[in-house]
């Protein structure tokens, strides 16, 4: 069974070989050449360095198109028209499914027709050299963003290709994104990814790794996000990763969001080994958006104001076209500019919210309890503990497409709009915290004159796209 131990040099080389076997580009990249390429990059393209050294909140969009030149042009637009500080390269769905044959077809068709026949950049098919060309052609650090449960070849190619940051992890790129993988399986895959990042790190190329904190994007209780990010951080650290960005998706309640970022920072420092540099990322609202662009601007605005108060190291922006489909470059840049305007208008202001401490304390205690349960379940081994904890529902995620999570927790908002646990299943959080959650939901139920039920959850899920935070019953 999977265990949280550093892969040996030999194991790394063995997996490496197997992984590169599937590389459509022919020969595997030479590790030494890859390191040389990284070493040739100027300071302003070194992801970890830029992120960790920044004074203000950095902005980063999501964006990916099939063709190399188009991707360069798209990233250029996002820097020029959107003031993006950090850049993404979002990978297409076929590559995420390891369907490189289909990705190649899509790529070819895109070249022939001149239209985008893939929903992202097929980095594996482009291959190492073309990735390096992308990195050379852009003016800011670039991160691989995807959603790939088995991202081994993608990591091997893109890290050799000069990318210095790689999103995802065994839990966060499994449970929300697929129904097809066991956790034990993806943990193994990501041990390779992390070990590879560790190998670069040992050569002085500090690859940044970023768990995908928002998970299913929909009313995820902060403690669950944070606990899972910490676990992925611990697993990555074991493999030698030294730059880790913990992630969290906005829930929409200002106090809870600020408390969550604060808790994440504090717990990151507490739980991760001293040699790891921990940073944080805040995602603007990841659930259903209003279709109307003006209203979407409002949602983006609230995310930006929250970030200005919570001061994470970076913010991932949304576009006003979120509900409609993949945004145009212009709409993507618009989301960045609105965010930039708000961050800068608020950056000089010292804003302290009442009640953050109390909420932060609730979150921190829940996280400690969840991590404790994982450690116990694995008899001290966090990898094994993760598999077992999810199996027993001690750790769980709301609305998982995957059967690897019990899916027994059900979140709803309390009367103040904070995300609470309506159903907590076997979730390993302290009893008094569960009681507090229940009490808050009862308050709301009383205010609304109805029982807490799935209908309340459904109303909350759709509330923001319907123009509000809490899904109250229609007034008569």
């Amino acid at each position: 069974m999977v265990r949280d131990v550093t892969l040996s040099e030999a194991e790394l080389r063995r997996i490496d070989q197997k992984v590169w076997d599937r590389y459509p580009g022919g020969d595997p990249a030479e590790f030494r050449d890859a390191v040389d390429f990284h070493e040739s990059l100027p300071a302003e393209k070194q992801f970890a360095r830029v992120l960790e050294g920044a004074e203000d909140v950095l902005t980063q969009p999501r964006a990916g198109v099939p063709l190399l030149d188009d991707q360069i042009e798209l990233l250029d637009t996002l820097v020029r028209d959107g003031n993006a500080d950090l850049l993404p390269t979002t990978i297409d769905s076929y590559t995420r499914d390891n369907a490189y044959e289909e990705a190649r077809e899509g790529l070819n068709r895109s070249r022939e027709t001149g239209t985008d026949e893939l929903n992202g950049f097929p980095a594996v098919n482009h291959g190492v050299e073309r990735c390096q060309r992308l990195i050379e052609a852009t003016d800011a650090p670039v991160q691989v963003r995807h959603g790939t449960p088995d991202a081994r070849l993608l990591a091997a190619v893109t890290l050799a290709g000069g990318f210095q940051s790689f999103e995802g992890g065994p839990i966060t790129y499994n449970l929300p994104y697929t129904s097809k993988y066991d956790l034990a399986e993806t943990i193994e895959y990501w041990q390779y990814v992390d070990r590879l990042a560790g190998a670069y790190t040992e050569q002085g190329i500090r690859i940044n790794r970023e768990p995908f904190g928002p998970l299913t994007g929909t009313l995820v209780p902060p403690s669950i996000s944070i606990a899972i990010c910490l676990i992925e951080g611990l697993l990555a650290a074991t493999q030698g990763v030294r730059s880790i960005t913990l992630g969290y998706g906005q829930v929409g309640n200002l106090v809870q969001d600020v408390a969550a970022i604060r808790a994440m920072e504090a717990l990151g420092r507490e739980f991760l080994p001293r040699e790891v540099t921990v940073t944080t990322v805040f995602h603007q609202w990841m659930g259903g958006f209003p279709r109307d662009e003006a209203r979407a601007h409002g949602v983006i605005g609230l995310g930006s104001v929250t970030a200005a108060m919570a001061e994470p190291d970076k913010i991932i922006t949304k576009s006003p076209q979120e509900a409609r489909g993949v945004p145009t470059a212009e709409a993507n840049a618009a989301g960045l500019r609105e965010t930039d305007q708000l961050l800068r208008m608020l950056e000089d202001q010292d804003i302290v919210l009442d009640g953050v401490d109390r909420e932060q304390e609730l979150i921190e205690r829940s996280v400690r309890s969840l991590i404790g349960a994982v450690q116990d379940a694995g008899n001290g081994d966090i990898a094994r503990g993760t598999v077992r904890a999810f199996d027993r529902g001690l750790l769980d995620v709301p609305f998982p497409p995957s059967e690897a999570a019990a899916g027994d927790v059900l979140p709803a908002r309390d009367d103040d709009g904070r995300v609470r646990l309506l159903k907590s299943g076997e979730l390993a959080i302290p009893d008094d915290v569960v009681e507090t959650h229940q009490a808050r939901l009862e308050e709301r139920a009383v205010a609304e004159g109805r029982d807490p039920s799935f209908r309340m959850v459904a109303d909350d899920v759709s509330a923001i796209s319907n123009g509000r935070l809490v899904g109250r019953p229609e007034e008569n």
Partner: protein
Amino acid sequence: MSGPTIVVGTIGSDAHVIGVTLLEHALREAGFEVRNLGAQTPAEEFAAAADEVDANAVLVSSLYGHAEQDCEGLHETLAEVSADPVTYIGGNLAVGQTEFETVRRRFREMGFDRVFESETDIDAVVEVLRTEFGTDEQVSQPVTRVSS
């Protein structure tokens, strides 16, 4: 007393399950029998499930933009089984910023009986299904209280 039987699921490689999760619960509450196939369900599995439960309706959800490819062959496979359900599709069906009327026409041609915009709210879906099967408010069960 059990109402008409409905199969729901997200087709293809699509993992967006929030919509079908809400649909499942709402339909149950409204008195329908529901079989939720969840995420990333191949077209054949919809047919197999419809056959197995003798479904009155199959509700296909797709959010990630590949509905057209993913639904290829669905109606052909359904034609082969003994059940004869009406078929609905909904979610985010347009690729890019296509007009909804164009999208609706395309999916109607593929065999879907009804095509829903992504703004569709759950109560509307329940309403349409009630009308479809002539069931009325009476079948609806009281909202069940959830507690942990």
